[in-house]
Every structure is written in structure tokens, then in C-alpha cells.
């Protein structure tokens, strides 16, 4: 393994998103803060408590998770797909870089971007409604493994995609609806059957509720159940992404 190559690729990926920070950091921060202002601050002043916490606090972890999910996915998928399309992937393919280094560099940079945006959203929320963090360990656990999982999904999507439209399917038609339905804005306890049971098949539910447990100590599902789903998703996508990279799927003709 070449540590110089790994470091270079990681730094290159970080510089790529930092150079366009308006798009990659500020834009998701503004969008998510708007959600918070509308749903948390405006509506929240009218709504009662939910799961025993004020609504304005209830939505914070969901919004942080929603943006981290999206940003982790977007960073790997757009970077890898663009280099496939503009041919700069050649620079990596001719280099003595293995599947493992590629994976660590791309996923690491995407996690960093998601952490930066997630932390900024959290700070914005805290200026409106201060609350202490309930459990640092669970918070970090879910932040780390969810962003890693979504970054892996982004790599797989970029390898598979043949055109930009293919990529756009994920954030708009998969991740956003699943995040909304996964209880960013509500507790699934409020749902009638069969929607309650249907919701339990949504992996984003466990990601949102896992982080909510870490932040607030309340959740629709236990943190252990959430952790199990997140770890299983991570393991599956890690396996798929490594296998695809190792085989050169849609990279080495």
C-alpha cells in the first residue's frame, strides 16, 4: 500500500469540494437551515412536544442526518462520476493505487464534507434552541457509520451510472423521500397501520432515529436496533464497493 498515494488522493478530494464550497458546504447549510426555520422554529412554536421533547429540538437530529446522508452520497458520486466522464480517472487507473486506497480516500473525503455540513447545521440549530448532547458515543457512532455507508453507496452509483440522469435518481428519488418518510419531521408512533410497519423497512428510519437517540435520548427504535441496521448496510455496501473496484467494473475496460 502506498501511503503517499492514499494521502494525495484524499487531499485531492478534499480540495475538490473546498474549491466549490459555495455549492458543497454553504448551499446544503442554507437549505437545511431553512427547513429548520420553517418546520422547527415557525411550526414548532405551535406544536406540542413530541416523544417528550420540544418539537423544535426533535427535528434537529433528523435535519442533521438528512444533510449528512445527502452530502456524503453527493461527494463520492459526483467526484467519481465526473472523473469517469472527463477522463481524469485515467490518472488514478495508471497509478499504483489499489481498490482499498481508492475506497478509503474517496469515502474519507466525503465523510469530512458531511461532518462539516452536519456540524454547521447543528451549530445553527443550537443558536435557536440550546440543548445538551445526550450521548456523545452514539452520536459519533451514527455520524461515522451512516456517512461512510452513504459515501460507499455514492461510489457504487458512480461506477454503475452511464449518464448524469442515472446519478440524479438517488438523491432526488431515493434518499430525500426515504429521509422524509424515515421520520425527520415526525415520530412513526403517530402513523396508523400499515404505515407504521411499512416504515420499519426504511433503512433511513434507523439512521435518523439513531442520531436522534444520540442527540436527545429519544427514538422510535432502540439505538441497538438502529446500530444493527446501519452496520449491516455498511458491511453490505463495503463488500459491494470493494468487489466492484477490485474487478474494475466500468472503470478498466
Amino acid at each position, binding site marked *: 500500500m502506498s501511503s503517499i498515494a492514499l494521502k494525495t488522493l484524499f487531499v485531492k478530494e478534499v480540495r475538490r469540494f473546498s474549491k466549490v464550497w459555495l455549492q458543497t458546504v454553504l448551499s446544503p447549510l442554507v437549505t437545511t437551515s431553512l427547513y429548520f426555520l420553517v418546520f422547527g422554529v415557525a411550526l414548532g412554536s405551535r406544536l406540542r412536544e413530541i416523544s417528550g421533547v420540544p418539537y423544535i429540538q426533535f427535528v434537529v437530529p433528523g435535519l442533521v442526518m438528512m444533510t449528512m446522508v445527502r452530502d456524503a452520497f453527493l461527494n463520492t458520486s459526483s467526484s467519481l462520476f465526473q472523473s469517469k466522464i472527463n477522463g481524469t480517472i485515467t490518472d488514478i487507473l495508471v497509478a499504483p493505487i489499489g481498490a482499498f486506497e481508492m475506497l478509503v480516500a474517496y469515502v474519507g473525503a466525503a465523510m469530512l464534507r458531511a461532518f462539516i455540513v452536519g456540524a454547521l447545521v447543528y451549530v445553527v440549530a443550537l443558536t435557536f434552541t440550546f440543548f445538551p448532547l445526550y450521548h456523545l458515543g452514539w452520536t459519533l457512532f451514527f455520524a461515522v457509520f451512516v456517512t461512510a455507508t452513504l459515501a460507499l453507496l455514492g461510489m457504487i452509483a458512480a461506477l454503475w451510472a452511464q449518464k448524469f440522469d442515472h446519478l440524479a435518481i438517488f438523491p432526488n428519488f431515493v434518499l430525500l423521500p426515504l429521509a422524509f418518510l424515515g421520520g425527520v419531521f415526525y415520530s412513526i408512533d403517530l402513523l396508523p397501520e400499515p404505515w407504521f410497519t411499512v416504515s420499519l423497512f426504511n433503512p433511513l428510519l434507523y439512521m435518523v432515529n439513531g442520531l436522534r437517540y444520540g442527540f436527545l435520548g429519544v427514538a422510535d427504535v432502540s439505538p441497538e436496533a438502529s446500530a444493527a441496521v446501519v452496520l449491516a448496510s455498511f458491511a453490505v455496501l463495503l463488500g459491494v464497493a470493494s468487489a466492484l473496484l477490485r474487478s*474494475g467494473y466500468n472503470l478498466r*475496460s
Partner: protein
Amino acid sequence: MKPPVLRCRHIVKRYGKFTALEDLSLEVYEGEIFALLGPNGAGKSTLIHCITGLAKQSEGSIEVLGFDTVADFRTTRRLVGLVPQEINYDPFFTPVESLMIQMGLMGVEPNRERAEALLKTFALDEKRDAYTRTLSGGMKRRLLVAKSLVHEPRLLFLDEPTAGVDVELRRELWQEVQDLRTAGTTIVLTTHYIEEAEKLADRIGILHKGELLLVESRESLLERHGGRSLEDIYLELIRKADGRHAA
């Protein structure tokens, strides 16, 4: 005897049902300039891609200085450099940044002085901090050549490095290629300017529909055909082979 720098054994490359390379064997020796000639679609780039890691051969094995390009890919890729036929550039980085990144990717500690020296060699020092997309086509191609050299490869592949490069710079580029060879680099190049190959190459290979029609030293090839130009010899061979395929 020293092992050849490059040894391809019975390479077959298929894209689906289409066979791009058919049982191709070739050796390239230390310090030579080897010109790979052939019409569009002959398989020149395909062969180069199999050696450099951009593609995987369907059958056969490739060794660079005795190391297998699949099993020992980390070693062989450090030894090999590639100037791809298709121009590519990363719009996010300037020429000097691109070179430093490429050093790192190749496993060499990034070094700004060396990057700037390379840009100077290829008459790009004025553009070193420009957006790469604002470089002209020929400049982008020269940047690719500079990028292929960041790790001082022992075996360098130039896939049509002079396409779109002006006469003056083409001469300079070929001078640079000869200097590299003098410094010990082995060079494999493709070009559609046959007279360039005639001037530069020590040995010539002619590829046609995935098969090597001929591999011979320039001297003996020209001697055998008594005073005719390489271009004439090349065209005759290709036409003959086309006739055989048509028959």
C-alpha cells in the same frame, strides 16, 4: 541476457464478441524507441491500455522488467508512464497542481520545484497557475506529457502525442523523446505521421485488425525495401492485409 523491458505473451483482448487483439506477442528492449503503427481501430491503444492498467487483457500475460502487470501491478505501474490519446484534464486544478497531485498518486513525494522544472521543459511555465481549461489543445497535450514523466518511468507510452501539436513544438517534443531515450527511458509510441516514425524509431511494429503484421528494425526494413519510404512500405503492407481480409 537481460529480460526485455516489455514482454507481451499471447495477448487476446475481446470487447464482447469483438476481438480487438488476436494472440499478440511482442517484446520491447531497454533503451529503444519502438513505433507502433496501424490504421484507425487497429488496436494500438487497446494494447497500450492493457499494459498500463486502463484495460485488462482477456487472455495472455504482460510483464514489465519481469514483473507481471496484474499480480505485481504496484511495481509495474511505478515503472510505466502513459500519455493517453484522449486529452483529459481536471478543471479543478492548475498545471502545477496537476503535476504535484500526479506525483503523489504515483507514490512519489510531491515536489514543487520538480513540477515547475517539468512545466519549463514543455514550455508551459507561463501557464503554471492558469486554469487548465484555458490552455490550448496543444498545451493540454504537452501537460499530459509532463504528467506522464513525474515519476521518471523506465518505460513510456506515447499514444499519438503529436496530434494537434504545432510543427515547432512537435520537433521539440521529439527532441525531448530522444533526450529521454538517451537518459535510459524505453519508449513506445504511436503516430499517424509515418515520417516521424521513420526518423525516430529504432524498431517498428505494424498492427492491423488486432494482429501484428510485422516487427522489424527500421534499418533492416528500409534496406529490404531498397530506398522506399516507410510510408510507402506501410501502405503496401496494409493494403495487402486488407486484401487478404476481404478475400
